[in-house]
């Protein structure tokens, strides 16, 4: 998946327009999500809610869960970027060539461990619970796609372009800033988007270590056997995930350098 991005070239190359989608296509997703939210609201309004359901499905509780979920996603993704992008840059510099394969292997193995296992491990072995523990689990899992895409993005830059840059007297730092990173951005953004989607989905699990989020609603519905509550929790998680993916797509289109 990560290597797909460079081939997704813009349709309007001749005119140099950055966007790959028309305005109407940009509007489809928000409209669909709006309709889904409305349908959910109508569905819940038509139900006779008992006291347990009412305790879970009130505006204050749902808003808090959504807000916690957004915080979990945002903080974990931000930390992921802060760790993975500099690491990816370091691991593509010539002086790290020898240790590169080992680090990539270790991280790939780490990613094979499910987040829930990491969370449980943190909770049981270290008695590490709550928001901070959730962030650790999420970050560990999301580092790999961002790191690998940063490395692939930087490595796929044409050697001739780099040689031309160096040959004209750009320093290594200038070449990184002005040439390598801009040319790697499409692939890097694809990795970041993947990390975001992973995080928004996995954040539904951190309720098990008492870190909040929309998982609270789903688990409340499951433990009390209330279908409506489960549906609301699951639907809100899905809508939030799609919304964040949509926003990430917008950012991808905006940041993609023209001329590629």
């Amino acid at each position, binding site marked *: 998946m990560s290597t797909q991005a460079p081939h997704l070239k813009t349709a309007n*190359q*001749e005119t*140099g327009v950055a966007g790959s989608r028309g305005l109407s296509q940009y509007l489809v997703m928000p409209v669909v999500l709006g309709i889904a939210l409305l349908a959910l609201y109508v569905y819940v309004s038509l139900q006779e809610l008992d006291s347990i359901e009412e305790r879970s499905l009130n505006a204050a509780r749902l808003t808090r869960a959504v807000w916690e979920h957004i915080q979990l996603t945002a903080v974990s993704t931000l930390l992921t970027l802060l760790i993975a992008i500099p690491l990816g840059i370091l691991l593509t510099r010539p002086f790290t060539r020898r240790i590169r394969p080992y680090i990539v292997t270790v991280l790939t193995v780490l990613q094979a461990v499910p987040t829930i296992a990491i969370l449980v491990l943190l909770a049981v072995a270290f008695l590490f619970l709550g928001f901070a523990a959730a962030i650790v689990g999420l970050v560990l899992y999301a580092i790999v796609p961002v790191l690998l895409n940063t490395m692939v993005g930087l490595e796929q830059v*044409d050697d*001739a*372009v*780099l*040689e*031309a*840059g*160096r*040959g*004209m*007297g*750009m*320093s290594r730092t*200038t070449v990184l800033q*002005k*040439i390598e990173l*801009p*040319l790697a951005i499409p692939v890097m953004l694809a990795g970041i988007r993947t990390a975001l989607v992973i995080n928004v989905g996995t954040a539904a699990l951190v309720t098990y270590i008492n870190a909040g989020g929309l998982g609270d609603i789903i688990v409340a519905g499951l433990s009390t056997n209330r279908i409506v509550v489960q549906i609301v929790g699951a639907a809100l998680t899905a809508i939030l995930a799609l919304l964040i993916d949509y926003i990430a797509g917008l950012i991808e289109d905006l940041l993609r*350098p*023209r*001329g*590629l």
Partner: protein
Amino acid sequence: MTSADSHETRQVMIRLEKLTKHYPGQQRNAVDGLDLDINEGEIVVLVGPSGCGKTTTMKMINRIIEPTSGRIILNGEDVTRTDADQLRRRIGYVIQQTGLFPHMTIGENVATVPKLLGWDKSRTDARVDELLNMVNMDPEIFRHRYPKQLSGGQQQRIGVARALGGDPTVLLMDEPFGAIDPITRDRLQNEFLRVQSEVRKTIVFVTHDIDEAIKMGDRIAIFKEGSQLAQYDTPEQILTAPADDFVAEFIGRGASLKRLNLSYVGDIDPRPWPTVSVSTSIAEARETLRNAAESALIVVDEAGRPHSWVSPEELNRAGEGSSLKEIGQTPRAIVEPRATLSDALNELIAARYAVTLVVDDTGKLQGVVDIEQINDSIRSMRASAVTEARASLGGEP
């Protein structure tokens, strides 16, 4: 042998002293103790089989490849250990794959070195326009385009313009026209020689194509495998007096034919040919042809440009009322004075009457060139080259 006599008066721009490159893990040096002087304002072509060290040599001049030992002296200054980034801003660099920055516009690409040198915006913009005009790319059209919107030939033109950005005294070119189709390559070579006649840079040009070397080079350095310099001399001398069997073999057969690339139609006097104007009557044209030794007439238009060939058969077939404008065959073999004798020969082989028409810049007919004249020209070239080779022999003890 390392310097031709005729160039000794000119100032040395690049001097390589005992330049050596050793790659770790390899037995032989990629470049081994090379001494080479390159004079100001000349194009020196490094040519040789792959693995001969020509590219490594060139890349050591701007230290994209750092030499293991030896010295590089640029315009009298030892630059072997100076700041490489600063050095490279003084040396233009053109590579085969162009290496244009795909995310930058043509204007931004060409402005790369001026920006690194800290020129202000108006000076940079003026320079970009000047360079784009110099390589025949209209700035109004191309300044804001991206590299991928350009053809291969246009991209390579921009590569040259970008390399000239900071007005360097030295230009390094690594097979710049290697990845371009033959027709476009020929045009780019001619254009580049025209640009060079204006800018007079000191140019080190790497190629594996001996024909390109002969066409582009003021002097040619032929490398043997194992980075030995086999011969360093003018194209004329290399073609006439190859230093050894390796050089002779590298030039290949047809050295005489290759020499035709070194002289121009303008160097020889075109032969006259019976000519009539389009307004001449058919009867007069018949009379002219009857008195001529040749087997056909050239018809020229009012401006003196060749219009057609007419044969006796065509004149006989034509009725009294018809005009010379309507009969005859359009001439195909036409060359300008700047064309090489090789071009002229190529044209005349395919031509109807075994001659090539020579026209001036306005297209006016000057006369014709035939195989005899080309042959004479080869013979005199060979004679003078032999004399020169003999003279240089006599100069050594």
